């Protein structure tokens, strides 16, 4: 009971037989969605990005642990997470940056590239939604620091068609780092 309340709704599985082949119209449309999304975020078009979200959005980034190979499936924790968001809280994150003069954690903003690769698209049984898996490498350059903070992750998304256009309904971000190597996740992944 408590676990269900604390954790996000489990994502539907990625079923091999439901894979939508690379290069198909649907696949290309998803790819364009992810590329356009990355472009909006990299260029601080956050209000525009928020319009891509469905009202029942779930947006999560589980914690990770170092455990043995035999416990690989237990390396994620989904009660306390790094991000545990819904539509309202994501809008607040956007408004903090677009509507205040005090979002110091990203003002001045980082220079960011969201490199999206390894995109796989799946149909979901009994649903018109699409399950999309992608790799994301986010590079973050802050102030005059001579290093980049790197945030490599896998994203498991649910995309839904609303009024003809794809929208983001679910996103789970699986980070590689147990101890996140950037001072905050004040950037959208």
């Amino acid at each position, binding site marked *: 009971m408590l676990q269900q309340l*604390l954790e996000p709704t489990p994502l539907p599985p990625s079923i091999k037989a439901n894979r939508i082949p690379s290069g198909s119209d649907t696949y290309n449309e998803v790819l364009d969605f992810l590329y356009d999304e990355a472009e909006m975020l990299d260029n601080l078009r956050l209000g525009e990005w928020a319009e891509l979200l469905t009202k029942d959005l779930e947006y999560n980034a589980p*914690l990770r642990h*170092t455990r043995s190979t035999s416990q690989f499936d237990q390396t994620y924790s989904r009660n306390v997470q790094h991000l545990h968001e819904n539509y309202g809280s994501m809008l607040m994150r956007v408004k*903090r940056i677009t*509507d205040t*003069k005090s979002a*110091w954690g990203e003002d001045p903003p980082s220079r960011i590239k969201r490199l999206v690769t390894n995109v796989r698209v799946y149909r979901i049984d009994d649903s018109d939604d699409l399950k999309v898996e992608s790799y994301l490498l986010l590079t973050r350059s802050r102030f005059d620091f001579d290093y980049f903070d790197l945030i490599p992750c896998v994203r498991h998304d649910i995309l839904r068609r609303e009024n003809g256009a794809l929208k983001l309904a679910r996103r789970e971000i699986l980070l590689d780092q147990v*101890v996140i190597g950037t001072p905050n*996740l004040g950037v959208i992944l």
Partner: protein
Amino acid sequence: MDRKSNPKLSDGTLLSDLINLETREVKMRALSDPELFELEMERIFAKTWVFLGHETEIPNKGDFVVRDMGSDSVLMARGSDGEVYVSLNVCPHRGMKISTHDVGNTMTHVCIYHGWAFKPNGDFIGAPVEKECMHGKMMTKQELGLKKARVAIYGGLVFATWNIEGPSFEDFLGDAKWYFDTLWCRTEKGMEVLGPPQRFTIRANWKTACEQSASDGFHVLTLHRWLSEVGPYRKPGSEGGGGDLTPEMYGTEVYTAHAHTMRCIELDRKIRRLTGKDPSELSIKEKLEALPPPGITPEMLPEVLRRFSDDQLRVMAWRPPQVGNFFPNGLFEFVYIPSPDGVIGVMALHAYVPKGPDKLEFVNWILAEKDTPPELKAKMLRLGVQLLGTSGMVEQDDSDTWPHQTLAAKGAVSKHITMKYQSMYENNRLEGWPGPGDVGDGFTKDDTQWRWWEYWYELMTAEN
């Protein structure tokens, strides 16, 4: 009484040159000097009680987590007798790290290097091929266990120290206990973590975070101003709307001999808003019913009322500790966040783990009472994640500030600039304030943070 020393850095600078006890200034150099860092690890983190986690992280026999006491990795484990043990996570054979996992369960910790095995309590079990006696015959098995720290459990929080014969944990808490009991010991069943802690790295010295944790009120006005621009502290139209965090700066600040400090922020405005009544006309019980402490529901209140003195209840209903620190590197938040669902309490604990002079690991636990209803736990968890820790909309501004201070501590000129703590309470004690410790009343001041530096200096100059 400990003998005093005045450590000298390799360029001849004395520790006393870096701090001015009269004018309440600390030179930036003290923030990030590598030699001072080594001394801090020895004189503070290897001596004082250090906060490591919560016992509900390791509920079952054999459960363990790996944590840090200053620059040393330790195993925090539950033994076969059900007790919590803390041992150095280093093999006494050749110094390999015993557990390279973050978390797990085992009754036998086996070093992967040569196979020496240890119990959760640190006792040596044996080495492979027992009859050949890999560990020799010069030392007994009792002598070959993991180095064990002394452990204290308080309100479920696990503290440990290497100072085996040193002051008791109660002595370490001192006057802070009277207040901390109202946070950590509110129910019979006690608190629990809602999951493992968030962890992330900041390129900043541990003291940038920790001197702030000692109840820096002023930074909220500017660094966290967004809270009143679009955030939860935007005032309702009936109170003029817009952004002004000034009212949140009033209350009582407490600072104790061992530099545990807290900001006891006044709840009267919130209670007036919730009840429409003048708080001075309400009883303590009525105030607590209108605005229960974080994680407590009106149904849970009778138990809380039974457990505390009238004086403690008065503080809990009027000016409860909302943010503060455990010296040296712990921070707690018991905050009342306005939300569309009413005021939601958020309870979090941070450890700022030193990782060298220029790096710290931020560890963030989110907690609730075990008795808190599941729906409320879920709300507290989400709000905690959204405001605090890795992605927290409040704390991402802190974590972006501390690296700049750390860099400034390196400048040939700026390392001689001083940090100033010169805003002082002039009428220290509010008449009728029922709690112990040093107490300041009114608008926030620097006394709490200055106490942090005073105690830092006391420990750094203690010979033994």
